[in-house]
């Protein structure tokens, strides 16, 4: 083999780059699997199955958003006797009242930064300015 001096370091760099995730996870304290907190209020049912919500909640919220804002379709869903007005703040956060322990746990894990929170208030935020008045 010729030009070992450049080719071997080059190959090593390449292998390091490709295997970056392996040694990254070796040298960092790998984070835990996210455990989204169940609703503190003990609610057991959501508007759809957990599997469905995990995969599709963002699209459902988008759909709701258009329903509510654009189509004026603000029907309140009633499922198993529980009423759910369409809306992130109105429906989801009522049960999942701790965004930090619910939404964020997975979003952080998967490095997703939804811009929902630019407008929508978490119960914690909402609470922060309730007491002052």
């Amino acid at each position: 083999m010729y030009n070992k001096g450049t080719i071997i370091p080059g190959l090593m760099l390449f292998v390091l780059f490709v295997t970056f995730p392996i040694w990254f996870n070796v040298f960092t304290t790998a984070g835990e699997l996210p455990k989204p907190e169940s609703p503190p209020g003990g609610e057991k049912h959501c508007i759809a199955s957990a599997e469905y919500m995990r995969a599709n909640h963002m699209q459902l919220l988008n759909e709701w958003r258009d329903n509510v804002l654009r189509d004026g379709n603000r029907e309140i869903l009633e499922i198993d006797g529980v009423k759910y007005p369409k809306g992130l703040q109105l429906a989801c956060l009522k049960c999942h009242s701790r965004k930090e322990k619910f939404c964020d746990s997975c979003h952080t894990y998967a490095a997703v930064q939804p811009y929902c929170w630019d407008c929508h208030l978490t119960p914690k935020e909402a609470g922060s300015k309730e007491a002052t008045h």
Partner: protein
Amino acid sequence: MKYAFSFVAVLALVIIAWLGSMIPGLQYLFGIAIPYLAIMIFLGGFIYRVVQWAKSPVPFSIPTTCGQGKSLDFIKQDKLDCPTRASEVAARMFLEIFAFRSLFRNTKSELHEGPKITYESSRWLWLAALLFHYSFLIIVIRHMRLFLNPVPQWLQFLGFLDGGAMLQVGAPLLYASSLGLLGGVVFLFGRRLVNRNVRYISLANDYFPLFLIFAIAVTGMLMRYFLRTNIDIVTIKELLVGLVTLHPVINAEIGSIFYIHVFLVSALLVYFPFSKLMHMGGVFMSPTRNMPNNSRAKRHINPWNDPTIKPHSYAGYEDEFREFMVDAGIPVEKELPPRKDEE
């Protein structure tokens, strides 16, 4: 019909993964075993190919000089196109690899009546190639968020730049790089069909990677935006982090589209070292680009130089022509033997 064959081949891969992933138990094959195998073949194959290349020496210094070389003080050297120092070579290689500088020079020739031949700059290929490769790179890096836990800050920022900063479209957000990759692949494929010259030289193994990468991009986008049944990013990341920490687990049902995507990527990884895709490694090792043009100033060594090859010797030459040389007054090493009649 070379592209039809490649298309069918990719389609077959999709169907294999689709059907396979639906057979209970085979998820482990498609989600764990094949990816492991693929990455090992990729790395092993890549190293093997590079080492194979490296086993052959570069016997001669053959840089393509694309500018004025270093000579006299008052002649300005083109340090990028005719480098003499290692740093200049590095700069040339950097621009070659990261800016596709040679392709930037591309021209298009036309024959006109006369005859008259004209040349115009033609940079669509350069642009599309940049778009394609950089989109691909960004996509690969971006996927690291699914392998790294915790996700480093810079990676999150990249995701933000790619997904949110440019276009806030849809949920989940549309990535600019997805569009870039698709656009690039479609252009490169269209070019193979439309450009006469390229169409004629294209082989099935030129179409295959294009279809494969197209299929990878499309399945990825389908999975992200449309076919979300059983696509829970947490489960998927759990599997992928498991893969890189060598404790792979599949804890929940994952949609077929994921297995198809992963299988296609595995196919690409396996295909890579044994195909023209190795240009990724080869571009670093092309002797016409990575050598300094200093062969008169510094002797380049050829390991198999054969010292036994000697010139037709001067002695032999003089022996043959000595008489004429002496007659013509050309100095000789050995004088002519005294002529017989003079004896």
